[in-house]
């Protein structure tokens, strides 16, 4: 086969490749390059500023928000998955939960933000109900519009995502393992501790990492709930782009975006490794 005809089939992929290069790779490269530039020249000024105490605090808050919502979402989501995995696939509860998880996980950040404004905002339904029946003001200083509120809101999204990602792993735990363990003398606790938990740990950790990356990269919900200030990295990027507080700090935005890419890439790489282990055991 001549070289040309060998290469020809690959030409069929060109439209797709070119599209990705233009709309995905070019922006990413712009960000990476731009992080190391200032005033059109190579400079480490912006990257250095990433290590300033302000920006490190902001990064830390992002990590905290993502981590807490991921852990809470993972634990609760795993528990909910466990509750329905023992039901047969046709049971009503299982189908309802799976469908609901599918829909809620598509719940865009925008709708999510307004859902919680309607619930716990200043004139939110729950706020009013609690204040009129128990006389408590749960709105306070508007905690929902700051980090604690964001954590709660993110969890609403993380739990369905966890169900979607973790349920297949739980399904992969074969009943023969439990029966074999039991016939060999294991109590329920021993089975969980020595067989099920070690088997599910890679899948659980992988799902946890996915939830973390998901929360870390999220923008819309935070952008709507938090209108003043920039407590977390994505909002700092918004500020840098819109030049509210800073003038012409475009390159700082690049640096911050670069930081985000690094964090998410590391997390997703670890996720991919854990996924491979989990799928080998839980096929």
């Amino acid at each position, binding site marked *: 086969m001549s070289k040309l005809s060998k290469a020809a089939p690959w030409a069929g992929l060109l439209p797709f490749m070119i599209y990705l290069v233009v709309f995905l790779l070019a922006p990413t490269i712009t960000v990476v390059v731009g992080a190391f530039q200032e005033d059109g020249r190579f400079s480490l000024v912006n990257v250095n500023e990433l290590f300033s105490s302000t920006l490190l605090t902001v990064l830390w808050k992002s990590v905290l928000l993502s981590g807490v919502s991921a852990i809470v979402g993972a634990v609760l989501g795993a528990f909910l998955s466990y509750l329905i995995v023992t039901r047969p696939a046709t049971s009503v509860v299982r189908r309802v939960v799976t469908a609901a998880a599918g829909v809620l996980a598509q719940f865009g950040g925008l709708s999510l933000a307004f859902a919680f404004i309607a619930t716990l905002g200043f004139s939110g339904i729950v706020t009013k109900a609690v204040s009129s029946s128990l006389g408590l003001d749960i709105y306070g200083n508007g905690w929902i519009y700051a980090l604690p509120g964001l954590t709660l809101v993110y969890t609403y999204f993380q739990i369905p995502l966890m169900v979607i990602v973790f349920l297949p792993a739980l399904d992969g735990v074969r009943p*023969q393992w439990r*029966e*074999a363990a*039991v*016939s*060999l*003398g294991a109590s329920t606790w021993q089975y969980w501790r020595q067989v099920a938990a070690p088997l599910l740990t890679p899948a659980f950790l992988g799902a946890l990492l996915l939830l973390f990356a998901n929360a870390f990269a999220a923008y819309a919900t935070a952008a709507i709930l938090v209108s003043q200030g920039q407590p977390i990295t994505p909002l700092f990027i918004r500020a840098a782009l819109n030049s509210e507080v800073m003038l012409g700090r475009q390159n700082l935005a690049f640096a911050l975006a670069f930081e985000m890419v690094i964090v998410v890439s590391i997390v997703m790489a670890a996720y991919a490794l854990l996924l491979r282990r989990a799928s080998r*055991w839980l096929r």
Partner: protein
Amino acid sequence: MTTAPEASSTGVGVSLVDLRRTYGTLNALDGLSLEMAPGEMVVLLGPSGCGKTTALRILAGLDRADAGEVRVGDKEMTHVPANKRDMGMVFQAYSLFPHMTVRDNVAFGLRLRGQDKGKRLKRADDMLELVGLAKFANRFAHQLSGGQQQRVALARALAIEPAVLLLDEPLSALDAKVRVQLRDEIRRVQLDVGTTTLFVTHDQEEALAVADRVGVMNAGRLDQIAPPTELYARPATRFVAEFVGLSNRLAADVSGGGATLLGTRVPLLDGSVESGAGHALVRPEALAVAADGETNARVVSVAFLGPISRVQCRLDDDQIVIAQVASAVAAHLVQDQPVRVDVSADAVLVVPD
């Protein structure tokens, strides 16, 4: 491979008394009673849905009977939870823990019993030696073939020195050749260790090859339980006669304690029709085909199977029979050749039309 074991010190007797189990409208077990002698290998044989796996799982404690008793040794086990029954179980497939090495899998039951590490790993290695997989101790389940995995599962079940060994269709998921090798292996190990064993299968050749006694189950009941040779030669019911081995159905006339078929008079097996017309169930090897003398049939086809051949003949009264003959004899037969088919059975079961 079916010699009865000597009285064994490790085996205990097992009694299943009148077990009943229904799932909704499905009657899985309809009064099953079974006694197993210490050290004996009993095979429960039957088609899918006959209740054999249900019986095994009730004995294991993984399922609970609606009525009836389970006794092991002299202990009443009916309500004892599965993890306290001291039984070793081998499943059809997928039962090895994928995150543990082979050695750790085998040692698992001992670890649960609190044995210290050195002892239990040594015992695990001994068991792996017994099944011929000592070199695979550090591998993982996904690195082993199906047959190897089942041998590890066997080693794991025996490591805890169970009172009873339970095998739930352990060979059904394996290739044909591996199946034959492994069933001999299982029998060898079982005789060696002397554990009372209940083996469930739908493959009648497997059952006949390894069992001390075979129990044929049909719709939740035990049709017959007997040593393999007796089961084959003297089936108690039509179901047993047709499920185990091949059977020809030949028109026969019964009177005075015997059946007349193909011009020959043959004694009756218990359970036969007492008098009148019926069909006799005759094994292919009980039919002889000769090319000389008075003929009563024509050859339809000859299937060469190596040492023996199966000759299909159409009798003069239009019945079709299959006779099993030595290939040397069949070699001379051609299609449409007139032949004489004779029956030479010790006894036959005659069923109503």
